[in-house]
């Protein structure tokens, strides 16, 4: 809050500029290292989702597990739109708008619940969307999955475009997160997180603010899903509505620091590095090792890396 008097736009503009440099610089730098491109894209995807989650789970203090629901919805929105012959940009638009349109009323309803109840209700949305998508096979191809047109094109081009889109999306999410954190919305959300009763008493329209945060978060997740679908080229319900899409961003945010602006970014980097390391070195215990990491993290550094460092420096 301290830098509020200085221009609030410097951070977001820097984030966007940095994102653009990364987005178009990375492919040039590692263009021949396809695997690195892939990892970088994955990292950008996780950063995007973690930032989106942080708007609700961090700033507002509502532990949402609905990330996978909007991610999957966005992926299917663009897949169906492109199959129907819509241009790509309208697919992205559809992904964002559909996610937001679903998130607004659903969020408004379940954001009345607190703690575990909210977590479970948000998780159920993933289950519901997954089954509806699977069942509505006329539109979505059901369990057979769906191919995106153009998926068979030049893989290098697809990988490059995916990385560029994903990094720019991540940078935009970061910029948005900075604006929210420093603005009226973020201030209101922080009050709600700390004491919702007092927040309402101080004139904060908690239901509205929470719903706005949830909707913004959903729209970002929808866009991330759409980018992902275009990147992978083939999606099926159990892939894009996988609960791990909800869990990984939470872990990433926890690692870096829940409720901080840069926590999700730092946490995502650590998470991806660790996951990659475990996956390479432990053939069949990768998931379990991840469990060990998370458990240790929660027990030893419950506030996350950034707040942990800040606290150490303060004392």
């Amino acid at each position, binding site marked *: 809050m301290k830098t509020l008097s200085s221009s609030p736009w410097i951070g977001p503009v820097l984030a966007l500029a940095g994102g653009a440099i990364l987005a178009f610089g990375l492919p040039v730098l590692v263009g021949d290292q396809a*695997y690195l491109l892939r990892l970088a894209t994955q990292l950008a995807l996780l950063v995007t989702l973690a930032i989106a989650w942080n708007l609700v789970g961090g700033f507002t203090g509502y532990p949402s597990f609905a990330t996978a629901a909007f991610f999957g919805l966005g992926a299917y929105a663009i897949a169906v739109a492109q199959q129907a012959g819509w241009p790509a940009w309208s697919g992205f638009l559809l992904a964002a708008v559909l996610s937001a349109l679903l998130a607004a009323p659903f969020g408004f309803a379940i954001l009345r619940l607190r703690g575990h109840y909210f977590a479970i209700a948000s998780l159920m949305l993933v289950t519901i969307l997954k*089954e509806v998508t699977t*069942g509505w096979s006329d539109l979505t191809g*059901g*369990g*057979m*999955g769906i191919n995106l047109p153009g998926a068979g094109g030049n893989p290098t081009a697809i990988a490059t475009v995916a990385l560029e889109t994903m990094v720019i999306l991540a940078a935009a999410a970061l910029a948005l997160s900075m604006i929210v954190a420093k603005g009226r919305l973020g201030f209101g959300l922080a009050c709600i997180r700390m004491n919702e009763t007092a927040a309402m008493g101080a004139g904060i329209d908690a239901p509205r603010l929470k719903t706005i945060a949830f909707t913004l978060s959903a729209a970002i997740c929808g866009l991330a899903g759409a980018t992902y679908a275009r990147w*992978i080229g083939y999606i099926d319900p159990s892939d894009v509505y996988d609960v791990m899409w909800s869990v990984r961003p939470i872990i990433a945010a926890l690692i870096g620091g829940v409720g901080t602006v840069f926590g999700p970014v730092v946490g995502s980097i650590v998470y991806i590095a660790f996951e990659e390391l475990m996956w390479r070195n432990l053939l069949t215990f990768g998931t379990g090792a991840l469990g060990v990491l998370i458990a240790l993290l929660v027990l030893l550094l419950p506030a996350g890396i950034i707040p942990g460092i800040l606290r150490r420096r303060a004392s």
Partner: protein
Amino acid sequence: MLLGGLSATALAPGFAFGQATNEIRIGAPLPLTGPLAPEGRKQKRGYDLWAAQVTKDGGVDVGGRKLPVRIIYSDYQSATPRGVQACEFLVNQEKAHFLFSPFGSGAAKAGSAIAERYKIPMIAPTASSVEVYDQGFKYLFGTFTPNSTLTEPLAKLVTEKAPDVKKVAIFSRNDLLPLSLANEMRKSSAARNLSVVYDEKFAIGTLDFAAALTQMRAAAPDWVFVGGYINDLVQVRSQMRDLGMKPKVLTMIAGPAYEEYIQALKGAAENVSSAAWWHPSVRYEGEDLFRSTANYVEVFKAAYNGDTPDYAEASASSAGAILQLALKKAGTLEGPAVRDALASLNVRTFWGPVHFGATGQIDSLTPPVFQIQEGKAVVLVPDEIKRGEFRFGIA
């Protein structure tokens, strides 16, 4: 910062670079954890058996040199995107010469794009859907015939032997292979004027089928066709028994081909009919390292405490055996040359006669139709390897 963190982990095993071609490196992404873990582990047994046999024989003959084989595994945790990532990792970082595809049609399809791009021949041991091979790719080869080759011979057999079978119930897991099988079954039924009186899907992970089966029972089908995986099929079968359902014909794909299915159900498995791409009771002679189906089964049993191989395990072994034959023919490890050798392959193996069609999918195999009789799978079709007659009714 971002790049630094990434390259540190990504380049660590890049030392494989310097190695000359003194071994054959094969990348095998497998779902060793997650929902597909049982299938992934089966495949691994098949690959390992082939690799062990190669080691025993002193290596693979490539242009007169005997080269050892190394299979590099990577667990993709049953998540298709991770499977694709694993393919790229194995080629790009582990410098694999060849790939065995991830499990199933969906993941094989997604992974084949990587193989195509790097000109790495990929053998898919578990992908049957024609859509996988329709992509115009040149480096993908599959050891399973299309799904229609399973349902058609079954439908033909049933309608010939039992013309009074008129009403069919189709019940399938809402998943790629079972849905595709159900689709083929629908077509096969329509072609023979059978009426489909019940047609439903069940969600992945369904535990209890009592309600759906109760409704199916009310429709009184003569022939019940269930598509799913072994856990679904074991449960559906035992609940059919609980509900006293006794259709004239009960067909289940793809579980009865597994020994565990018979073990789990004991008497209730009797007279369940099925079809698979291979069965241990088929009898083929081959030019491959296993020499014959009978010998393959023996070697497998010796290696895995007496377990009998099923089609999934055998297909994995056959992927290795077929690659080995192609390598011998090509005389080099170069991707394009081995690809051409695979494309023009026309050999006999323990898996059956092997020839790949224009799309890369095998077109020389006749999947056997079989039925569980006295606790054993008995082949009914094709005639050359027929071991018994179709029996009607179930316990």
